[in-house]
C-alpha cells in the first residue's frame, strides 16, 4: 500500500464544470501514486495562512485521476458543491494551498480477466470509478453505467466517453440516456452477458440493488465503495464505523472504502 502524505498542496485549477460540479487540480510533490478507489482528505478551512476552524473536519474525496508533472503529480478531484465544506473548497483559487492527506483506503481489487467488467456509478459516486475504468480497459471488456437525477448531474460523463468504452446512461428525468435508474441498465446487462465483475459506487440504495443483482447472477462478484462521515481518514477517529457481516464493525476509511458486497450489512448503514 502507498504511504500517505500530509501536505499543503497548491491549487492549479478549481474549474467550474457546470451546475454544482467543480474540478480541482492540485500540484502534489512526491505523490506516491494511487490505486483506483483510493481517496484523500481535503481541509476546506485550511487554506494558505488563513486557517479557520469552522468547518473543522476535512472531507474525504475520491482521487479522480493523477498525471505526472515536474517530478510530482497533478492530482485531480471531481466534486459537487453540496454543503459548507465544499462551498469553501470551491472558493479556493489558483495558488492557494489546500491541506491534503492521502492517498488513503483500500482500492478496488483488479478485475480478473476471465469476466467482463461492469462499472455502476450513481451521482457523485461516479468520481470513484474513473481511474478503475481507465485501467480495467486494458485487462477485460468494460462497460460503464452511469446514473443521476438529470443529465447535468452526470459528473465526468465526457471523460468516460473519451475512454472509448461502452457507456450507458440513465437519468431519473430522462434528460440523458434511459429514463429510470442505472440499476435497470445493470440488470439488463447482466441478463444479456451473464457473469460479470461488478463495481459500484453511489447512493446506498443503488449499491445495495447492484449487489443483489450481482448475487443473483451466478459467478458474478460485486465490490462497492462506501461513503461515511470521517474525521481523520486513516483509522484513528473510529468515526466512520459501519456494521459488517457477519458481525462487528468495519472502518470505511481503512478497512474500505471498497468492500466485497457480501461483507456489507446494508440495513445498518447510516
Amino acid at each position, binding site marked *: 500500500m502507498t504511504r500517505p502524505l*500530509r501536505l499543503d498542496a497548491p491549487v492549479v485549477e478549481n474549474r467550474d464544470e457546470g451546475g454544482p460540479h467543480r474540478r480541482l487540480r492540485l500540484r502534489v510533490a512526491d505523490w506516491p501514486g494511487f490505486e483506483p478507489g483510493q481517496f484523500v482528505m481535503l481541509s476546506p478551512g485550511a487554506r494558505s495562512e488563513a486557517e479557520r*476552524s*469552522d*468547518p473543522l473536519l*476535512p472531507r474525504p474525496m475520491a482521487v479522480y485521476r493523477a498525471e505526472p508533472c515536474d517530478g510530482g503529480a497533478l492530482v485531480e478531484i471531481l466534486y459537487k458543491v453540496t454543503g459548507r465544506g465544499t462551498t469553501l473548497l470551491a472558493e479556493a483559487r489558483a495558488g492557494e494551498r489546500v491541506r491534503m492527506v492521502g492517498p488513503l483506503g483500500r482500492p478496488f481489487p483488479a478485475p480478473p480477466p476471465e469476466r467482463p467488467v461492469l462499472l455502476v456509478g450513481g451521482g457523485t459516486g461516479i468520481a470513484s470509478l474513473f481511474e478503475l475504468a481507465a485501467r480495467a480497459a486494458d485487462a477485460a471488456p468494460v462497460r460503464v453505467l452511469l446514473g443521476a437525477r438529470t443529465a447535468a448531474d452526470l459528473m465526468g460523463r465526457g471523460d468516460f466517453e473519451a475512454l472509448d468504452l461502452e457507456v450507458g446512461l440513465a437519468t431519473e428525468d430522462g434528460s440523458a440516456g434511459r429514463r429510470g435508474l442505472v440499476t435497470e441498465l445493470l440488470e439488463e446487462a447482466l441478463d444479456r452477458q451473464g457473469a460479470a465483475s461488478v463495481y459500484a459506487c453511489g447512493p446506498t440504495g443503488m449499491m445495495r440493488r447492484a449487489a443483489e443483482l450481482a448475487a443473483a447472477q451466478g459467478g458474478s462478484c460485486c465490490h462497492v465503495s462506501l461513503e461515511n*462521515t470521517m474525521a481523520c481518514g486513516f483509522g*484513528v*477517529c473510529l468515526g466512520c464505523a459501519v*456494521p459488517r457481516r457477519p458481525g462487528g*464493525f468495519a472502518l470505511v476509511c481503512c478497512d474500505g472504502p471498497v468492500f466485497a458486497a457480501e461483507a456489507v450489512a446494508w440495513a445498518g448503514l447510516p
Partner: protein
Amino acid sequence: MGGASVSAPGRVDTRVEMGGVTLRNPVLTASGTFGYGAEFAPFFDLRRIGGLVAKSLTLEPRSGNPPARIAETPSGMLNAIGLENVGVDAFVAEKLPALPEGVPVIASVFETEVDRYAEVCKRLTGVPRVSGLELNASCPHVKSGGIEFGQNARLLATLVRAARRASSLPLWVKLSPNVTDVAEMARVCEGEGADAVSLINTLQALDVDLATRRPVLHNVLGGLSGPAIRPVALRMVWQAARAVAIPICGIGGIVTGEDAVKFLLCGARAVQVGTANYLNPLAALEVAQGIERWAGEHGFPRLADLVGRLEASREGSS
C-alpha cells in the same frame, strides 16, 4: 499556522518532568485521538514528541457504538465511539511492540467498576514500554463507568486509591469538565496519591438533525471536542492549577503552538493534542515546534519558566 520545516530560533530547554515521567518536550497526544501510535508512524518520527497517550484500554476488547458515531459542530465535533479498543492484553502483545523505542507511552485505562480498573492497571504494570497510566474517569458517552467516577468526588477517591494500590507506575487522572468544581476533583486525585491530572476530557453534548428530528449521534449524547472547547479548558486548567501542587496536563482544542502556550501560562506543565490529530496528522509535532519557536522568540529559554506565568489581570501585563 507553522509548517513542519520550522526550526528553533534560539536554544530552548523543552524538557519537562511530568508526574514521574520525563518528556523531551511538553506535547503528548490525547487518548482516543492517536490510535495506538503506529497509525501516525507514516507521517512523522514519533520520538520527536513528548509522548503519546494511547487509546483507552479495557479488560476485554470492546466493539464500540453503532453509527452515527461522530458529527461536525461549529469549530468542533461530537463523538460517541463507545470506547472501542483491542483490550489490554492485545495492546501489550501486539500494539506496544509496533512503537519505536524512545517515545514515552502512557496507557489510558477505562472500566466500569473499580476492581476492573485496578486489574487493567495491574496488567500494565511491569510492561517495559509503559511509562505511566492515565485513568480515564471522564468518558461521557458509554452507558456505565467513566464519567460517573469523574463526577462524584467520593467515587473518584475510591477509584484513584484502588489504582494507586494496584500499580507503582506514575499515575495520571483525566478529569471531566462535566462537574461543578474541577478544582475539588483535582484535590481528590492529589489526596489519593495521583502524580498528575490531565484535563479536560470532552464536554457532554447533543446536536439534532432537523431533517429527521433525531439526535445526530446514535448514542444521543456525545463528547464535544475541538477549538470550540478551548476557553473552557483554559479556565479549568487555571482553576485546577491553583488548587493542587501536582503537575497538570492541559487538554482541549489545541491546534497550534500558541494555543499550547496559553495552557502553559494557565498552569499546565504539559499539554495533549487531541482532535487536531485527525485534521492534521502532523499536528502534535507542529505544536511542539510552535511552542519552542514562541518561547525562543519571546525570551523564555526554559519552557518551565512559562508554566503558571499568567499575569494577574490585563492591566498588570508587563
